[in-house]
C-alpha cells in the first residue's frame, strides 16, 4: 500500500527506516517538526537524499560562506555561488560558465560508469545555465601506480571518461593524473566542464509564473542510482557491507548529446522560464529546488513520469538518479513548441505538474497525495553543522621533519644529477600522460587551441574575434597535508600561473574539495584551514570563487586521503593567436627563469620519490604570483615571447625537459651563479616560470621585468645543433653545462615508457613518429 499523507497523519507511530537512509535521530525529529506529523515514506526518501552531505553541504556550509564573504570586488561575475554553476563575463557580450565536481565513490565501485556519469552530470550543470558546453577536463588521483587496485580502477575510469566524452563530442583538453598512496582505496575522479553563452542566454533554476508547466524530458526514469547519493557519497566503505554496484548510475552519452542539442534549441527559442538538470537526488532535488527558487509552490503528478521499469515505487522514482534527464518550466502557450523541438531531437518529454503559489511542494501518486512539504525545507534549509575541529596531533612532528641535506641525502655529482632527472621524468607522476590523453578526443568542435600536456587547456570561444578562455586545475595534496592553509593557496597559485603562462588573464576560480570524514575533527581542521587559505588568497589575487563542490568521506576505515582541494582557474585571452605554447621553436631563442629559487623540497616530487613527506611546503608569495602573471600576459600580448612553462612539480630541470620534449628541439643551459645545481634543478619554489624570448625582444623583455621588479635570469639558449659536438650527430640534445648531456630520444623513451608498462598497450603515443619531425 502507498504511504500517503492521510495515512501518515493517522499512523504517527509507524516505525520508519530513517537510519538506514542515512538520517540521524535529530534530523528525523526535525523533519517531524517541520511537517507536524511523521513523514510519508516518499517524504522520508526526499529528505534523506536532500539532507545527505553530498546534497546539503551540511558540514561544509559554515566554511564555504567565506568564499562569498571574502569575495573580491569584481564586475566579471554575472552569476555567483549557489546556482548550478557560476557565470563570468569575458567581454564582447560573451559569458562563460565552468564547474568541477567529484564522482569519487561511484568510480571506485564501478570505474567505467562512475567516471562516465561524472562527465554527464557536470555537462548538464553547464547546459542548465543556458551555455553550450565547450570542453571537459578530468583531474584524476589514484593510489600507488603499481598497486593492484590502481590497475583495476584506472583503465576503467579512463575508458569511461573517453567513452562518454568522445561520444558526446566535447574535447578533453587537460586535467591531472596523480598517484599517491593516500588514495589507495579512495581514488579521486573529478570532472570539469566549461561552456559559453551570450549574456542574454543565461538561465536560472527557478519555477516562476503560477500555472506554468513543469516538464520532465530526456531519458526515462529507471532503477539505477537509487540511493546513490545518500548511501554512496555519505558513508565510508566497509569491506563487509552489502554490494553497492546497483547504486551506480549507467550513462548513455548518445542521449546526453541529444539532450544538449534539444535543450540549447528550446532555450534559444525562448521557450523556457526556468531549467534544472537532474543529478544527485533526481526528481526530489529538481522539483524542490525549482519550487524553492521560484513562486514557492509546485503540484506534481508523479504517476506521469515515463519509466524504464514499470515496477518502480514512488519512493524509488523520487530518489532515482537515472542519467540524462532535465526539468524545465514552460508557459502553457509555449508547451506545444517545446514538445515539437523535443520530438525533432527524438527526446521524450512529459508534463509532470505545474507551478503554484501555495508555498507547498505537493506530489500525487494516482490520486493519493504522497508528499506535501515546504520546498525550502527540503532544498535549502537542511541541517547545518558546526562540526568540531582541531589541529592533528601529528601535525607538528610532520612539519618539523624538514628534508634537509642531512635528513635526505642529495645527489651532488653530475652523473647523480643526470640520473635524478631521468628518475623524475620517468616517475608515474611526471611521466608522459599520453597513454591516458590519447584515449580522449581533443580535436572535436575545432576550437582547441591548447590541450594537455600544455600548462592550460585553451578554447576559442568566438571564431570571428579570436576571444578565448584558458582553464587549468591543480593540487599538490602533499603540500596540503603538510599545511592545509598554504596547500590550498599553492593549488590556487599553480593553477593561476598555468593560465598566465599560456597568455590568459586569470578571472575566476572553481574548486573541488576532496577530504576524509567531516566527523573526524582532524579532517575537519584540514577542511577549515584549506577553505580559509583559499578564500584569503582569492581575495588578495582579486579573483572570485564562482562555485564548486565538496566531497567528504574519502577514507577507508581510519585512513583519510591527504586533503585534496583541487582548484580550477579560468582565464580570458582576447585573441587566441597570442597564446603562448610550451614548445620552443626558434634556434637562438633565449631561455629565462623568472622568479627566485630557494631550497624548498618539502612535499616535492623529488622527496616523494625518496619516500619522504615532511617539513613546510614552499613559501606562498601572492604579490609575486600576481606580478608574474601580469608579466606573462603582457609578454604574450606584446609578442615578446615564443614559449613559456610553469615551474612546479620536479622544478626547473623537469620543466626544461618537458619543453624540449614537446618541441623535439634541444637546448643548452647552465646553472646560474651562486646557487647549488641540485637546488636550481629540482627545488619547487613557487612564483616561477620559464620564458623563451627571441633575441630581438630580449632588451624590451628584460627592461619590462626590471621596471616591474621581477627577477629574470637568462640560463639557456635553444639550439638544435648540439648533437654534433656532444657525440650524438643527427640527434637533438639537451646540454646542462659542466653537468650532463642527454638526447631527446633518451628522455622521450623513459618519459613515455612508464604508463604503458604499468597499464598495458603499446600504441598510444601521442607524438608523431620521429621522421615527421625531421621533415
Amino acid at each position, binding site marked *: 500500500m502507498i504511504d500517503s499523507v492521510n495515512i501518515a497523519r493517522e499512523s504517527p507511530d509507524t516505525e520508519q527506516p530513517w537510519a538506514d537512509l542515512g538520517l540521524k535521530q535529530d534530523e528525523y525529529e526535525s523533519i517531524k517538526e517541520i511537517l507536524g506529523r511523521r513523514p510519508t515514506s516518499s517524504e522520508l526518501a526526499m529528505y534523506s537524499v536532500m539532507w545527505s552531505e553530498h546534497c546539503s553541504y551540511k558540514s561544509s556550509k559554515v566554511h564555504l560562506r567565506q568564499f562569498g564573504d571574502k569575495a573580491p570586488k569584481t564586475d566579471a561575475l554575472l552569476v555567483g555561488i549557489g546556482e548550478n554553476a557560476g557565470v563570468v563575463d569575458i567581454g564582447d557580450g560573451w559569458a562563460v560558465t565552468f564547474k568541477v565536481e567529484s564522482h569519487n565513490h561511484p568510480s571506485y565501485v564501478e570505474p567505467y560508469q562512475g567516471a562516465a556519469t561524472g562527465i554527464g552530470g557536470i555537462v548538464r550543470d553547464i547546459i542548465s545555465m543556458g551555455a553550450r558546453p565547450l570542453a571537459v577536463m578530468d583531474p584524476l588521483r589514484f593510489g600507488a601506480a603499481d598497486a593492484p587496485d590502481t590497475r583495476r580502477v584506472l583503465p576503467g575510469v579512463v*575508458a569511461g571518461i*573517453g*567513452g562518454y566524452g*568522445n*561520444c*558526446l*563530442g566535447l574535447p578533453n583538453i587537460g586535467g591531472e593524473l596523480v598517484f599517491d598512496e593516500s588514495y589507495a582505496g579512495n581514488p579521486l575522479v573529478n570532472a570539469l566542464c566549461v561552456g559559453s553563452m551570450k549574456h542574454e542566454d543565461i538561465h536560472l533554476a527557478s519555477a516562476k509564473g503560477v500555472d506554468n508547466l513543469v516538464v520532465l524530458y530526456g531519458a526515462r526514469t529507471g532503477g539505477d542510482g537509487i540511493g546513490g547519493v545518500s548511501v554512496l557519497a555519505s558513508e565510508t566503505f566497509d569491506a563487509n557491507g552489502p554490494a553497492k554496484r546497483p547504486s551506480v548510475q549507467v550513462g*548513455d*552519452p*548518445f*542521449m546526453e*548529446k*541529444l539532450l544538449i542539442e534539444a535543450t540549447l534549441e528550446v532555450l534559444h527559442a525562448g521557450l523556457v522560464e526556468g531549467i534544472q538538470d537532474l543529478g544527485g537526488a533526481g526528481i526530489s532535488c529538481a522539483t524542490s529546488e525549482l519550487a524553492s527558487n521560484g513562486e514557492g509552490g509546485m503540484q506534481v503528478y508523479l504517476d506521469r513520469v515515463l519509466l524504464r521499469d514499470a515496477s518502480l515505487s514512488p519512493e524509488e522514482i523520487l530518489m532515482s538518479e537515472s542519467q540524462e534527464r532535465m526539468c524545465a518550466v514552460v508557459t502553457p502557450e509555449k508547451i506545444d513548441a517545446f514538445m515539437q523541438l523535443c520530438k525533432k*531531437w*527524438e527526446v521524450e518529454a512529459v508534463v509532470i505538474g505545474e507551478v503554484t503559489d501555495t508555498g507547498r511542494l505537493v506530489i500525487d501518486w494516482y490520486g493519493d497525495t504522497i508528499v506535501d512539504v515546504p520546498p525550502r525545507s527540503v532544498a535549502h534549509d537542511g541541517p547545518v553543522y558546526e562540526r568540531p575541529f582541531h589541529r592533528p596531533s601529528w601535525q607538528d612532528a610532520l612539519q618539523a621533519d624538514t628534508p634537509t641535506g642531512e635528513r635526505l641525502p642529495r645527489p651532488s655529482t653530475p652523473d647523480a644529477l643526470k640520473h635524478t632527472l631521468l628518475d623524475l621524468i620517468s616517475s608515474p607522476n611526471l611521466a608522459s600522460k599520453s597513454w591516458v*590523453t*590519447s*584515449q*580522449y*578526443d*581533443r*580535436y*572535436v*568542435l*575545432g*576550437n*582547441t*587551441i591548447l590541450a594537455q600536456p600544455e600548462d592550460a587547456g585553451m578554447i*576559442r570561444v568566438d*571564431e570571428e574575434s579570436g576571444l578565448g578562455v584558458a582553464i587549468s586545475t591543480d593540487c599538490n595534496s602533499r603540500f596540503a597535508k603538510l599545511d592545509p592553509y598554504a596547500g590550498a593557496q599553492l593549488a590556487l597559485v599553480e593553477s593561476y600561473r598555468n593560465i598566465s603562462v599560456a597568455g590568459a588573464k586569470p578571472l575566476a576560480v572553481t574548486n573541488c574539495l576532496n577530504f576524509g570524514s567531516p566527523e573526524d575533527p582532524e579532517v575537519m581542521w584540514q577542511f577549515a584551514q584549506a577553505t580559509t587559505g583559499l578564500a584569503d588568497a582569492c581575495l588578495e589575487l582579486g579573483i572570485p570563487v564562482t562555485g564548486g563542490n565538496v566531497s567528504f568521506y574519502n577514507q577507508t576505515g581510519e585512513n583519510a586521503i591527504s586533503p585534496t582541494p583541487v582548484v580550477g582557474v579560468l582565464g580570458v585571452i582576447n585573441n*587566441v*593567436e597570442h597564446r603562448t605554447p610550451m614548445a620552443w621553436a626558434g634556434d637562438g631563442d633565449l631561455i629565462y627563469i623568472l622568479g627566485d629559487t630557494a631550497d624548498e623540497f618539502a612535499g616535492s616530487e623529488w622527496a616523494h620519490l625518496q619516500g619522504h613527506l615532511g617539513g613546510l611546503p614552499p613559501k606562498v608569495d601572492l604579490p609575486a604570483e600576481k606580478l608574474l602573471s601580469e608579466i606573462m600576459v603582457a609578454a604574450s600580448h606584446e609578442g615578446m615571447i615564443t614559449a613559456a612553462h610553469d615551474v612546479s612539480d620536479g622544478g626547473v630541470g623537469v620543466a626544461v625537459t618537458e619543453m624540449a620534449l614537446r618541441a623535439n628541439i634541444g637546448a643548452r643551459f647552465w646553472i646560474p651563479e651562486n646557487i647549488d645545481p641540485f637546488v636550481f634543478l629540482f627545488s619547487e619554489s613557487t612564483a616561477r616560470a620559464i620564458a623563451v624570448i627571441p633575441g630581438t625582444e630580449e632588451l624590451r623583455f628584460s627592461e619590462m621585468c626590471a621596471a616591474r621588479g621581477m627577477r629574470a635570469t637568462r640560463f639557456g639558449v635553444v639550439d638544435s645543433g648540439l648533437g654534433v659536438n656532444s657525440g650524438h650527430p643527427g640527434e637533438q640534445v639537451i646540454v646542462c653545462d659542466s653537468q650532463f648531456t642527454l638526447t631527446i630520444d633518451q628522455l622521450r623513451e623513459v618519459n613515455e615508457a612508464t604508463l604503458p608498462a604499468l597499464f598495458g*598497450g*603499446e*600504441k*598510444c*603515443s*601521442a*607524438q*608523431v*613518429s620521429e*621522421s*615527421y619531425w625531421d*621533415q
Partner: protein
Amino acid sequence: MSARIGVVTFPGSLDDVDAARAIRIAGGTAVALWHGDTDLHGVDAVVLPGGFSYGDYLRCGAIAKFAPVMSLVIDKAQVGLPVLGICNGFQILCESRLLPGALTRNDHQHFICRDQRLRIESTDTPWTMDFALGQEIVIPLKNGEGGYVASEVVLDELFAENRVIATYQGENPNGSYRNVAGISNKAGNVVGLMPHPEHAVELLTGPTIDGVPFFTSVLKSLIGAP
C-alpha cells in the same frame, strides 16, 4: 557562386560543424542536411561527418544507413555525386555497401586520438586531386573502431584498381589491413577516410593544414564538371 557541399547531421554526429568550417575555409558553401531530409537541397557533393550516429550502439553506421537522407545519398552516389565519409561517415559508407569491407574495433582495444602520418596513394578522385601522388601528410586520427578489414581478394582488387587513396605511415594505429586509411569506390566519386582532414584546416587548432586539399579538391572537380 561557390559550390554547395552538404554536411549531413545524424543524431550523434559530432564533427559536422568542423566539416562545415573546413568547406568554408576551402572556399565552398556548406549546406546543413538533416538525417530526416527527403531532398538534398541541390547540393553538388556530400560529406558524412565523424561522430557516433545513433550512439553506434549496434555496429557503427549500421542504423545511419537507413536514415531517409541516406537513401538519396546512396542513389546519387551511384550516378557520380562526390561523397566523402570521414570516420563514422566511412563506417556508414561501408554499411551502405557503397564501399567494400568494414571497420572493426582497434586491435589494441582503446580509443586512440593522435596526429597521424599518411601517404596519399591516389590523386584520381574528386577528393584527392589537389594532392601530389605519394605526398605525406599529417592529420588527426581519432577512433575506437577504425581497423579496416576486407578479404584478401577485395584488398588485392582495391590496390590493383588504385582505389586505396591513403595509407598509414609509421606505426599502424588501429590494425587496419595493409595499412589502409582510406579507399574509394570503382568510379572514384565515393571516398571513405578514417582520419580527420576537417581537424587540420587551421594552424591554430590543428597539427597542420594538410586537410585542406581534400576540400579544395572537390571544389576544383566540381568547377571542371559539366
